C-alpha cells in the first residue's frame, strides 16, 4: 500500500471482478476500503476458486484473494431493517461507493441512486454493469464470454478461418474495473473541489471499445476491419519469439539481429513493401534461424539490438523472471500451504524499487467489530444482537 489516497474512504459493494478490481486499485493506492459482503456466503468468488491443492476447507480462493486482499471485510444484510440503517451509516461515512449489482437491484432495496444522493450530496456513486444503467440492453444477461463478443474484443482474437476466440480470465470485467477506477477519481476530484458528488455509470460493453485507439478510424477512413490471425511470430527452440521490423532500426541491422544477414541479398524482401508483400516467405526464412536458439537467448539478443520484441512466457517463467525479481514486483500472501507470490503493483513511486508487501486476505466479516463498533460507534452488544439476527 502506498500513500497516494491515504484518508480516502471507499465503500465497496462489488462482487466477483469488475467492482472489486476498481476498489482494489483504490485500496492498493492507500484508500481505506470497506468491502461489504452478504452474511454467511460472502462474495461468490470466495467459493469460486481456484484453491491450492492442500486447501481442503477452501479458505483462500485465488480469485477472491487477488481482488480483495487488504480491504476491510464486513458483512451486512440490507434486506433487513437493521441492516438498512447500518448501510445508511456506511454511506454517510464513505466518499466513494462502488457497486456492480444488476441495474435496479439497489433501488429495489430502497437505495435508489437519487435517494442516496439526496442524503449524501458529496458522495461519488460508481455503478459498473454489463450494459449500463440505461438503454435497450440494460436488463440483458451477460457473461465474460458474451461481453467480450458484444464489446468488440473477441472479433480480433483467434484464427482467421475459425470462430472468434474469448480472451482468458475475466479480462473485459477487469478492464471495465480500471475504467471505473479512473472515473471514480475524476468525480471525486470534482467533489473535493466543489462539495458535490454524482453518479457514474460505467458499462463493460462500452469500457472496452472506448479505449480502442485506432480501430474506428481504420474502418471509417479506409474500410478496414481488423483481421484475426497473428503476425510477426517465429518459433524458437523452446517457445516463440515475436519481433517486428520497424523503420527506427536499419533493415540489415534487423536481419543481423535475427541471425539472417543473408536475406539482405534478397532485395524484394526489403522494406517498405517487402515485409508486407512477401510476409509468408520472410517468416519462413526467419523461422529457420529462430528455431536454433531458445527464447531467453532471443530476448537478450533483441534487447541488445534494440529490436521491439517479446517471447512467450509460461506462468512458471513469469514467476521466475529475473526482471520482476530485480523490481521487487512480487508481494507475498499467506496461505494454508505457506507463503506464495502475489502479483504486486504495476507502478513505482519515485525512482527507488517498491517494497514488497505482506498481503492479507480478510475472512468473511473479519472487520465487523472494527467497523461497526470502532468506526460507527455501536456497542459489542449491538453487534452480538445483529449477528444473532443474521444482519451481520
Amino acid at each position, binding site marked *: 500500500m502506498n500513500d497516494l489516497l491515504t484518508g480516502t474512504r471507499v465503500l465497496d459493494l462489488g462482487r466477483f471482478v469488475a467492482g472489486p478490481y476498481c476498489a482494489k*486499485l483504490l485500496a492498493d493506492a492507500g484508500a481505506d476500503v470497506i468491502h461489504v459482503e452478504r452474511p454467511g456466503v460472502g462474495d461468490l468468488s470466495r467459493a469460486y476458486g*481456484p484453491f491450492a*491443492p492442500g*486447501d481442503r476447507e477452501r479458505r483462500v480462493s485465488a*480469485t477472491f484473494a487477488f481482488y480483495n486482499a487488504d480491504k476491510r471485510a464486513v458483512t451486512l444484510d440490507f434486506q433487513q431493517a437493521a441492516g438498512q440503517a447500518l448501510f445508511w451509516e456506511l454511506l454517510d461515512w464513505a466518499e466513494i461507493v462502488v457497486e456492480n449489482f444488476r441495474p435496479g437491484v439497489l433501488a429495489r432495496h430502497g437505495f435508489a441512486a437519487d435517494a442516496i444522493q439526496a442524503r449524501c450530496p458529496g458522495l461519488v456513486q460508481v455503478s459498473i454493469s454489463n450494459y449500463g444503467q*440505461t*438503454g*435497450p440492453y440494460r436488463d440483458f444477461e451477460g*457473461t465474460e464470454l458474451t461481453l*467480450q463478443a458484444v*464489446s*468488440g474484443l*473477441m472479433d480480433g*482474437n*483467434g484464427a482467421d478461418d*475459425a*470462430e*472468434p*476466440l*474469448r*480472451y482468458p*480470465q475475466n*479480462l473485459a470485467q*477487469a478492464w471495465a474495473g*480500471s475504467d471505473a*477506477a479512473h472515473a471514480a477519481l475524476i*468525480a*471525486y476530484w*470534482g467533489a473535493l473541489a*466543489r462539495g458535490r458528488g*454524482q453518479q457514474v455509470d*460505467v*458499462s463493460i460493453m462500452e469500457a472496452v*471499445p*472506448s479505449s*480502442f*485507439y*485506432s*480501430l*474506428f478510424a*481504420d*474502418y471509417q*477512413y479506409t474500410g*478496414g*476491419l*481488423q*483481421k484475426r490471425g497473428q503476425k510477426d*511470430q517465429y518459433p524458437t527452440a523452446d517457445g516463440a519469439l515475436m519481433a517486428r521490423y520497424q523503420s527506427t532500426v536499419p533493415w540489415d541491422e534487423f536481419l543481423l539481429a535475427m541471425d539472417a544477414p543473408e536475406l539482405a541479398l534478397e532485395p524484394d524482401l526489403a522494406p*517498405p513493401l517487402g515485409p508486407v508483400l512477401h510476409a509468408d516467405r520472410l517468416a519462413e526464412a526467419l523461422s529457420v534461424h529462430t528455431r536454433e536458439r531458445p527464447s531467453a537467448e532471443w530476448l537478450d539478443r533483441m534487447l541488445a539490438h534494440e529490436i*521491439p*520484441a*517479446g517471447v512467450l*512466457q509460461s*506462468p512458471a517463467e*513469469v514467476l521466475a523472471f529475473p526482471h520482476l525479481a530485480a*523490481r521487487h514486483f512480487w508481494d507475498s500472501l499467506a496461505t494454508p500451504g505457506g507463503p506464495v*507470490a502475489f502479483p504486486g503493483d504495476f507502478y*513505482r*513511486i*519515485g525512482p527507488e524499487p517498491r517494497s514488497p508487501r505482506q498481503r492479507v486476505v480478510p475472512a468473511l466479516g473479519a472487520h465487523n467489530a472494527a467497523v461497526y463498533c470502532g468506526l460507527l460507534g455501536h456497542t459489542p452488544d449491538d453487534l452480538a444482537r445483529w449477528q444473532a439476527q443474521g444482519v451481520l
Partner: protein
Amino acid sequence: MPLPLAGIRILDNGIVQAGTFPSRLLADFGAEIVRVENYRSPDLSRNYVFPDGVAAEGYWEMGGTYHEQHRNKTYCVGIDAVTPRGREVFLRIAAACDVVVDSHPPGVLEKLGLGYADLQAAKPDTILLTTSGYGEGGPMSPMRSYGMMTEFMAVSWHNGYAGGPPRRGTIPLTDHPTTYHIAFLILAALVKRRRTGQGGWIDVSQYEVGLNLMGDAYLAHAMGAPVPARAGNVEPGLPFAGCFPCAGQDRWVALAPRTVEAFRALCRLVSLPALAAQDPWAALLSAEADRRLRDAVAAWTAPQDSHAAFLALQAQGIAAGPVQNVRDLLLNPHLEARDFWWLVAHHPRQRAGLRAFPGPAAHFSETPAELHRPAPLLGEHNRQICTGLLGYSEADYNALEASGAVGTRPNAADIIPPAFPQAMRTQMGPWAFGMRAKEIDGERMPRLRARFGPAYGT
C-alpha cells in the same frame, strides 16, 4: 457545474498510445491538455490510416489514428527539445502544468535534460507520470516494446482454443486497459498533492499491468492450484457455452446460459426438449449430449442474422452476445441510445470531415463529458502558448521560430506516403501504412450517413 477537472493542466509528451490516451480521457472531463510533439519527427500515429487510404501534401495532419487518439485535446506545440531554446520552452510549459505525461523509452527525457530532477527544479510540486514496456529499473527496462509484445509476454500463453497452442490476438491488448490505469494514477497523484502539497514521479510498467489483468491466474499458479491452460470459448463454472456461426461471412453469436432455467430455455429454443429435462449443474452433460446440443444450436443460429439470434436468446433470459466488429459497434442501437458516439468535426487540413469516435465509457449524472474540438494540428498553438501561457514577447517568439526551437513542419514533409493499391490492403499491417482492410464495404457510407447524418464523412 463546471467539468470536474477544470483548472487541471497536463503536458502530454506521450507517443503512440499508452502514453497519449490517458490525457484524452482526462480532457473529456475538463482537463486542459498541452500536447507537445517533436515537430521534426512527429508522432508515428500521424503516418497511417489516411482518409480513403490516400495521403497528400500535409499528410501528417491526416492520420486517422492521430485524429482518434487526440480528439478533444486543447493545444499542440511543436518543439525541437534538442535545442537549448526548445528545451527551455518545454520546461516553461512543464512549469505551467500540474502533470507531465511521457511514454518515450526510459532515459530519453534525462538525456534531453528534461528528467524528473529537471522538471522538479522548474516546478517543485510537479507530477511526472512515465510509462514504458517494462518500467524504469530492472534488466528489461531498456527493451523497446509495443503493446503486442508485452501482451505476448504476459497474456498470450493463456490465450488459445481448447487444447491448442498459445495465440496472440490482433489488438495490442495491454495498451488499452493500461491507459485507464495511468489516468487513475494521475488523479491519485493529484489527490495526494492536494492533501500534502507534494508532487512526485510515478512510473508504470505495461508488462506489469498485463500481469495484474491476469493476476488471479498468476496467483493461482503460485499457489499450485490447477489452472487449465487455454480453455477456448468456455465460461468457467458454467456447464455449456460457445460461439456459433450465423448467416453471412464471419458472423457469430456467443452464448452461455447462466441458470438451469436459461439452459432449459435454450434446449427448447433449438428444438431439443428432451435435453431440457437435465440439470447440467447437478450432473455434467455427457459428451454425446453436449455434441447434440452444440449441433442443434449451430443449426438454429446458422440461418439467422447474429443480432436477431442475440435478441431471441436474450428474450429467453439466455446470456448471449453477437460478435461485433467495429462497424457493428458504430451502428449498434444500444450504444446509440446511450449517446456513446461523438461526432468530431475536423479541421480542413485534416481532410476527414465529420467522423464518429467513441466517447468516454463513464456517464456522469451531473457533469457529463464534453466534446470541444478535434485533434489539434502540429504546432497549431505555438504562438498562442508561447506568448500567452509562457509570457514570451512577440519578438522573442519570432526568434524561437526563426531558430527552429519551435515549428510546424516535419523534416520528412515532402516524402508523402504512397497510396497502396486496393488489392494490397488485405496484406497490410498497421505498422506499414495502416491499412487493415479485410474487405471494403460498398454500403458503409450510406449506412453510416443514415446513422450519423448526411454531413458524416464529408
